[in-house]
């Protein structure tokens, strides 16, 4: 036990050191990827609460992120609300919107709920495009790089601390949630909503709560995304984004805390990786640029492979990998443990 605690302490220590040193050793490009991944992690962890743990399929995460981004942008540019304040407000705003679009959950389940959220995605996009007095439509809103304690958060270094920090916090909160009654109620709704109801869980209340929490995460992610891109326009919040997020939690692992993180990292890094491979191969074999299509191809292929071979996602694969390596390195005994 003590041994175990020590291990975790060491792990945390390493993490903190990486967190503090990272920005100063990595290139802007790498930092950019990490920041995107961190922002995506926030959104994915949130979506995992709703879809992975509560079992409500939401296809509007992209639009919810958009709501957050616009809220922050409008508060910051039009009303001059301080940067740090806009982030939680954006979260709350999005939570409210999420609850409104969660109301159909009163009657709908499964695919039909997914459809209502799809409608939400489309309607919100319509609002982004057409409520020009607030969103200035397709024109988009420019944001001047924000200040944090006097330091201008321009560029990727400053944002690294912010995004990664908030992502870590988000994961911690989600981790807490599923040690408690609320979390258990969510899972119960996913596993057997009727039984949960008869045990005394107010299904509708908890479904709405789940929507609220999940969209709060989305809102925060959106606000960060907006400030990071210094430009908010509808095209960044389309259905494809929502689908990417679903892909993240599935690839990462549904109903698993680390699923959100791994999935987000995977989906952000994968295209880079495929590009690199193509460039790498391209040095020897001349390649058409249409080979960029392979990015999409590989993405689709991997998703299918995951769902057919390893529905539990990356987390499970990594766990197995870990045990396997342990078995290979240490005694064959731990192999047995690992596999059961």
């Amino acid at each position, binding site marked *: 036990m003590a041994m175990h605690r020590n291990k975790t302490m060491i792990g945390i220590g390493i993490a903190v050191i990486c967190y503090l040193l990272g920005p100063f050793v990595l290139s*802007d490009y790498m930092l950019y990827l990490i920041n995107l991944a961190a922002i995506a992690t926030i959104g994915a962890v949130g979506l995992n609460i709703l879809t992975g743990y509560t079992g409500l399929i939401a296809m509007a995460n992209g639009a919810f992120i958009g709501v957050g981004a616009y809220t922050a942008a409008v508060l910051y540019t039009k009303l001059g609300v301080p940067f740090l304040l806009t982030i939680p407000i954006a979260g709350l705003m999005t939570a409210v919107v999420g609850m409104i679009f969660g109301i159909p959950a009163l009657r709908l389940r499964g695919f039909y709920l997914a459809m209502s959220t799809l409608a939400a995605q489309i309607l919100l996009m319509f609002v982004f*495009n057409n409520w020009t007095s607030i969103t200035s*439509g397709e024109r988009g809103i420019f944001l001047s790089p924000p200040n944090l304690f006097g330091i201008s958060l321009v560029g990727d270094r400053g944002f690294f601390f912010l995004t990664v920090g908030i992502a870590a916090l988000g994961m911690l909160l989600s981790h807490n949630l599923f040690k408690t009654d609320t979390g258990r109620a969510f899972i119960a709704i996913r596993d057997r909503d009727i039984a949960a109801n008869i045990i005394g869980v107010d299904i509708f209340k908890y479904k709405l709560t789940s929507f609220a929490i999940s969209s709060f995460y989305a809102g925060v992610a959106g606000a960060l995304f907006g400030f990071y*891109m210094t430009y908010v326009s509808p095209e*960044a919040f389309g259905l494809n984004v929502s689908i990417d997020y679903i892909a993240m939690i599935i690839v990462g692992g549904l109903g698993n805390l680390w699923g959100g993180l791994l999935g987000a990292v995977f989906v952000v890094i994968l295209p880079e990786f495929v590009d690199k491979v193509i460039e790498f191969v391209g040095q020897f074999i001349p390649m058409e*640029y249409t080979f960029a299509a392979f990015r999409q191809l590989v993405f689709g292929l991997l998703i299918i492979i995951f769902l057919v071979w390893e529905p539990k996602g990356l987390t499970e694969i990594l766990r197995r990998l870990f045990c*396997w390596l342990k078995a290979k390195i240490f005694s064959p005994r731990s192999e047995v443990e690992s596999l059961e």
Partner: protein
Amino acid sequence: MIKRISVVVMIVALSIFVFSGMGLAKAKQEIPIGIIGVFTGMDTDVNGMSYGTRDYFEWYNDKFGGIKGYPIKCIMLDGKNSIPDEVKNFKRLVSVEKAVLINGWGTGGTKALKDQVNKVVKIPYLSESLAIEVIDPVNCPYNFVLGPSYEGQIEIGMVWAKMQGAKTYAILHNDIEYGRGTTKNVIKAGLADKLGLEVLGTVEYPWHLTDCTAQLLRIKKMNPDYVYIQDSATNCTTILRDAAKVGFPASKLIADCWNFNPIIPETLGKDAEGFKPIMLFPDYGSDIPLMKEILEYAATHKIEKKDQNYVRGWTEGKLIVESIKRVIEKSNGKLPKTAQFRKMIRDEMEALENFDVGGSVPPVTYADHQGTSSAMIGEVRDGKFVSISDWIDIRKVREELNKK
């Protein structure tokens, strides 16, 4: 077992990723130039302009062994016409490849990068999008485009229509920035009134267009002399087809530069006869000095896209190389440090005056970061595009009208 294999594959994959990442170290004494193109998703049908620029660099390297002996290293990336991807490419080109100039693409991306380009990194950014927000030498000193803005093109359409003695005009546009925003600007600028041309209305349709009948019925009801379509070829095809459906003649339809695209007559046949796209550049194979260079290159290489966009790309390549050449002359044959280099290229580019690119556009003066504000009106005649007007310089027209 399979699972384990997949695991191993993943490890190998990741390691390759890391190493190839290291492999991307920049070679020295080259001139790294980035191109952000579109090779997947919407708008790929016009990516000839990216290939054009790339090929020009290659041609130049082969012919002259680089600029003053320094070969150009061209890094071409896929921006997918999405903001996050273009920003990502930008970061890579700036921080990893240390590019000295970037040939950017999309409207959204160009706008999102406004601060990065002008305030943070300070790197000349010649974008393909003709978005008006960045055509501003004072506030966006590092943003360049080539050719009249979409607004300018609509107005060129108006001017030409007026020349034909038209009284009324209408604008049909999609619901994204490219359509809606542009149209709004034109209406605000109010050139039509000054010309004495009445804009009967603007009609909007969805970007993912399946059927435009309803919108065209509204247009037909207005019955304008000419209609300007603010959209690119894919949607324009649908529109032309439905125009024929509701019996609205194609000869009354003018559209922006992206519709100078052989696919349209090819697809629609007689329904496209008389359709009038804006021509910013002459077609591939037309009789201009610049074309000789292209053919020279084409003799030994495959030309990805044989269209006006390729000509455009080639032209941009010329402008870029010319400015860099001047920089190297100024710094007596040495390559300046990256930051300095970027600034100097910008200055030289801005300083270009009446620079002859070989007939693809009127001589370029880049003081306004727009190079040229002229275009011709084309028309489909038995399946071929022909230009039916001279260069119309919208800037001159504006100035004259403002004098009155």
